């Protein structure tokens, strides 16, 4: 199961990835610096993605436009998305949930590692439990 981190700041992406790794998750992590790049990544990997962490303010295509697009496509609308953003007013939070009612969470920057971990751990554990185990290779023939 893959995780996608969408943020125009490379340093912020690294910071989030560090927190995920320190929480004990060794999933493959894909990075996008705009919503447009994230759409391309999701298009190529949607069957394997278990979580998307998405910033709001980004150039080219922002996070709001990205989640609005995701909500309209049935094949990807169920992928859990957690917004990780400085957009912290009630109006913006309501706007995000209105455009993507299944949003899995909303974290306002600045956040502590514990806050991010507490939000993503249950989502990732649930996604891992739902993922069928890889088939066991047949025993070597004598």
């Amino acid at each position: 199961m893959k995780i996608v981190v969408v943020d125009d700041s490379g340093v912020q992406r690294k910071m989030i990835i560090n927190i995920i790794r320190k929480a004990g998750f060794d999933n493959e992590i894909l990075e996008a610096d705009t919503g447009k790049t994230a759409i391309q990544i999701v298009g190529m990997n949607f069957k394997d993605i278990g979580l998307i962490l998405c910033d709001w303010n980004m150039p080219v295509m922002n996070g709001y436009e990205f989640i609005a697009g995701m909500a309209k496509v049935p094949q990807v609308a169920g992928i859990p998305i957690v917004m990780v953003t400085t957009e912290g007013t009630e109006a913006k939070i309501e706007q995000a949930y209105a455009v993507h009612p299944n949003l899995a969470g909303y974290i306002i920057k600045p956040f502590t590692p514990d806050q991010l971990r507490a939000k993503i751990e249950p989502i990732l554990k649930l996604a891992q439990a739902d993922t069928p185990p890889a088939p066991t290779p047949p025993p070597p023939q004598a």
Partner: protein
Amino acid sequence: MELNEQDKDLVRSLKRAIYKTFFIMCKYSIEGEPTVEKKDIIQWMQRYNVVKPVEYLYASVMTFRYGAKKSVYSVDGIIVVYYPEDVADFIFKYINVASEGVDDIVDACGEFCNIIAGGFKVELVEAGYEELDISVPVTFYGEVNELFEYRGDKQLEITYRKEGELFLMTDLAIDPKVLIKKAVGGDKKEEGANK
């Protein structure tokens, strides 16, 4: 120049955002009050001219817009955060990621400015003002002489010092016309006093 009530709200909101950002991101508690001055904006061809003082090595700039009615070139406010080298290094250290050079520190300064500006607008909404939209940050390293679209003529310069040394400086300017107090219990809006 004396601060009016709107200026005081802006300063209070920005101070809270800066305090919270340093406290959560760097586990650092800013002590003491900053100096606050209301100054004329340096303009060139009716644009906001960012000229970084030599004491600072990095400068991050973000703009504010009110509503979607404005043209794409219209900017209703601007914030510039200036970082001395040692403060930028201090911030980067707490972000706790491997550095691949100056570009990463520039990126971190931009993200820090983004968090301060985002926190500032949340504080402003909590102080009763209508919400502003923010741009993505642009960060400069070394010499800066850049023009931005903002056309106002006054700004607030807020300077923090630590043990007498410069710690952080922000320039903040918002067009008073877009500092609109939300009406309580009705749709009628009341514009700020400083038209």
